[in-house]
C-alpha cells in the first residue's frame, strides 16, 4: 500500500508499545517501535516515518532531547507526546519546543486515533502549502525570466522596433532603433513621437492606424523614410484589445541605406549607359531620315522599305532608352517631384488632344468623361502627363479597329478615380500580376505588332505610388481592359493634417 502511513511509537514500557501497536495497526497504520529516544532517532534515520508518538520520560534519551533533534532534522514530522497526568507541565514544555500535541495516559483508543489522524492531516496540509509556495516562487521566477528574455530579444534585434500607445506616444524603442535614429539619451516614457522620428509622413501614418480610418484597407503601412542620412523601411501595424479597439501600434524599421546606395549606383550606371547609347542612335536615326528624305540620292523601293523598317527599330531603341532614363529618374527619389494642386481634367484633356491623331490613324475613338468641379489633386504635372499618356496610348495600341477608349474621371470623396477603359484584346488572368513589372511584355501573336519597351506600366505604377495613389486593373480576354487609378485629393491630404 503506497499511502500507508507509518507511526513510530517510542516508549520504554513494552506494554504501551504493544498496546499502541494493537490499536493503530487495525486502523491501517504501519507501526514501528522504539524503547527510548536514541532508538527512535536510529529508526527515523533508517526509514520514512509520518508521525512520532513519544513517551515523555525514558531512560537513555527522553522526549525533550528527541524533540530537539527532530525539530532540526525532521521538521515535517509531527511529534505527539505521551504523558502521565502528573507531568502535564513537562508536556507543555515539550509543546513549546515544537511538539504537535500531547495525550495523557491512560488514553482511550478513540482519542489516540483522533490525535494521530489530526497530526497526519496537519502534516499533509503543511506539505501542500510548501508545494504551493515552491510553485509560486517558480512561476514568479519564470515570469521574470520571460520579461527579461523579451527585453533581451527586442533589444538584440538587428531591426529597430518602436511601439506607441493609443495616444501615439512612444512607449518602447529598442536600442537598435535609437542608434538608427540617432537618439542619444532615451526621452521619458511615454515620450513624444517627435523626439524619435521626425518624419511627418510617418507620424501621419501612425495617426491613421490609431484612428482606424478605412477598415477595409490592408491594416499595415509600409513606408520609406530618411533620418540622419540613414534610409529606413518602416512597416507599421496597429494592435487591438479584445473588443477590437486599437490600443497602439508596432513599427519595425529595417536599415536599407546600403540597398539605396547600390540602387543609386545602378541608376547612375543605367543613366550613363543610356546617355552614351542615345547620342549615336539619335545620329543614326537622323542619317536614316536624310536618306529616306532622298537628300542623299534616289532610293529603290526595296531600299526604302528596308530603311523604313530599320528606322522604326531605331525609334524603338530610342524609346527604350528614354523610358530607362525616366525609370532611373523616378527611382532616384520622388523628392524632386513637384507636388502642387492640379486640376487633372486639364491634364487629361491635353493628353487626349495629343493622342487623338494617333488614335484616329488606328481607327480608335477617344472619349473623355470628366465632369466640372472635380476636386484638385496634389501632384506633379509632368508625372500625371506621363501616367495618362502611357495608359491611353496603351489602350489605343491594343484596341481593335473601330474600338473606343473611354477615359472617365470621378470624385470618390477622399480620392479621385480615373478609369481608362478599352475594348481591346484583354489580358490573361495569369499575366495581370506581372504587367507592372519592369520589362514585362505580354507575348502573343496579337501583341506582336505593338512596339513597346515594357517599362511604361512600371513607370505608371511607380509614379502613382509616389503620389500615394494606387492603380489596379480589370480585364476580360476579348472584351477589354480597364485601368483604375486612384489619387488622393488635396482635401484628403488636408484632412489628415487637420486630424493632428
Amino acid at each position: 500500500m503506497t499511502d500507508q502511513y507509518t507511526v513510530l511509537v517510542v516508549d520504554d514500557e513494552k506494554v504501551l508499545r504493544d498496546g499502541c501497536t494493537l490499536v493503530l495497526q487495525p486502523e491501517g497504520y504501519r507501526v514501528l517501535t522504539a524503547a527510548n529516544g536514541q532508538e527512535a532517532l536510529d529508526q527515523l534515520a533508517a526509514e520514512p516515518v509520518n508521525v512520532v508518538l513519544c513517551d515523555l520520560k525514558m531512560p537513555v534519551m527522553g522526549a525533550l532531547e528527541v524533540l530537539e533533534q527532530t525539530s532540526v532534522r525532521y521538521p515535517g514530522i509531527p511529534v505527539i507526546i505521551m504523558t502521565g497526568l502528573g507531568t502535564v507541565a513537562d508536556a507543555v514544555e515539550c509543546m513549546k519546543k515544537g511538539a504537535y500535541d500531547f495525550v495523557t495516559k491512560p488514553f482511550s483508543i478513540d482519542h489516540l486515533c483522533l490525535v494521530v489522524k489530526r497530526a497526519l492531516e496537519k502534516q499533509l496540509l503543511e506539505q501542500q502549502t510548501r508545494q504551493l509556495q515552491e510553485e509560486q516562487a517558480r512561476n514568479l521566477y519564470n515570469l521574470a525570466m520571460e520579461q527579461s528574455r523579451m527585453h533581451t530579444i527586442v533589444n538584440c534585434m538587428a531591426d529597430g522596433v518602436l511601439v506607441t500607445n493609443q495616444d501615439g506616444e512612444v512607449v518602447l524603442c529598442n536600442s537598435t532603433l535609437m542608434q538608427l535614429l540617432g537618439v542619444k539619451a532615451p526621452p521619458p516614457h511615454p515620450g513624444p513621437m517627435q523626439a524619435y522620428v521626425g518624419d511627418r509622413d510617418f507620424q501621419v501614418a501612425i495617426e491613421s492606424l490609431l484612428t482606424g480610418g478605412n477598415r477595409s484597407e490592408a491594416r499595415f503601412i509600409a513606408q520609406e523614410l530618411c533620418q540622419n542620412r540613414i534610409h529606413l523601411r518602416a512597416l507599421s501595424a496597429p494592435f487591438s484589445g479584445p473588443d477590437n479597439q486599437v490600443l497602439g501600434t508596432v513599427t519595425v524599421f529595417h536599415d536599407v541605406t546600403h540597398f539605396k546606395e547600390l540602387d543609386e549606383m545602378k541608376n547612375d550606371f543605367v543613366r550613363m549607359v543610356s546617355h552614351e547609347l542615345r547620342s549615336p542612335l539619335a545620329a543614326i536615326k537622323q542619317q536614316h531620315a536624310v536618306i529616306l528624305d532622298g537628300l542623299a540620292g534616289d532610293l529603290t523601293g526595296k531600299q526604302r522599305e528596308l530603311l523604313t523598317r530599320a528606322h522604326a527599330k531605331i525609334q524603338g531603341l530610342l524609346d527604350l532608352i528614354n523610358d530607362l532614363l525616366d525609370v532611373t529618374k523616378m527611382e532616384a527619389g520622388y523628392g524632386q517631384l513637384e507636388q502642387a494642386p492640379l486640376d487633372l481634367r486639364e491634364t487629361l484633356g491635353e493628353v487626349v488632344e495629343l493622342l487623338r491623331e494617333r488614335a484616329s490613324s488606328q481607327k480608335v475613338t477617344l472619349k473623355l468623361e470628366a465632369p466640372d468641379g472635380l476636386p484638385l489633386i496634389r501632384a506633379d504635372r509632368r508625372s500625371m502627363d506621363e501616367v495618362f499618356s502611357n495608359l491611353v496610348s496603351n489602350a489605343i495600341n491594343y484596341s481593335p479597329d473601330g474600338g473606343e477608349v473611354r477615359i472617365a474621371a470621378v470624385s470618390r470623396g477622399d480620392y479621385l478615380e480615373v478609369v481608362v477603359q478599352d475594348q481591346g484584346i484583354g489580358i490573361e488572368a495569369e499575366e495581370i500580376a506581372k504587367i507592372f513589372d519592369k520589362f514585362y511584355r505580354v507575348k502573343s501573336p496579337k501583341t506582336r505588332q505593338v512596339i513597346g519597351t515594357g517599362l511604361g506600366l512600371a513607370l505608371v505604377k511607380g509614379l502613382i505610388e509616389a503620389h500615394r495613389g494606387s492603380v489596379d486593373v480589370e480585364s476580360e480576354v476579348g472584351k477589354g481592359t480597364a485601368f483604375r487609378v486612384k489619387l488622393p485629393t488635396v482635401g484628403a491630404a488636408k484632412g489628415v493634417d487637420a486630424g493632428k
Partner: protein
Amino acid sequence: MSGKYILIVDDDPDLVETVSMMLESKGFEVGKAYDGIEGEEAIKKRRPDVLILDVMMPRKNGYQLCKELKSNKWTQEIPVILLTAVGEAVPTTSYSHADGMSVEAEDFIPKPVDAATLVEAVQRLL
C-alpha cells in the same frame, strides 16, 4: 531661301552633316562649327540669320554660349534654336521647353532632328 545663312554648332560631325543636308536641300547656306568656342568664332566671322545650337558640347556648352549671346547687344538679336536630348520620352515638350526658355532660346528641337520640324522652325524665325 537663298542667301539666308544658318550656323549649326554640334560636337557630333554626323549630326552636323545631316542637319546641314536637310537645310541645304531647302536652299539655305550652312556654316558648321564643332563646339561652343568654334561656334563663337564662326559667329564673329559671319553673323548667322539663325543659330542652331547643341546643348551638350565640350569646352563651352550650348546653354552657356546662348546666354552669352543673349546678354551681348551685338548678338542678342540672333535667333537661337537649341537641340537637346532632354525630355523626349513624353509627347509633351513643356518640360524641355521650359529649360530652353530659361536661357532665352527662341525655340527648342529634340534630337534626333526631324527635317520638317527643323525647316519649319528655321523659317518661322527668319
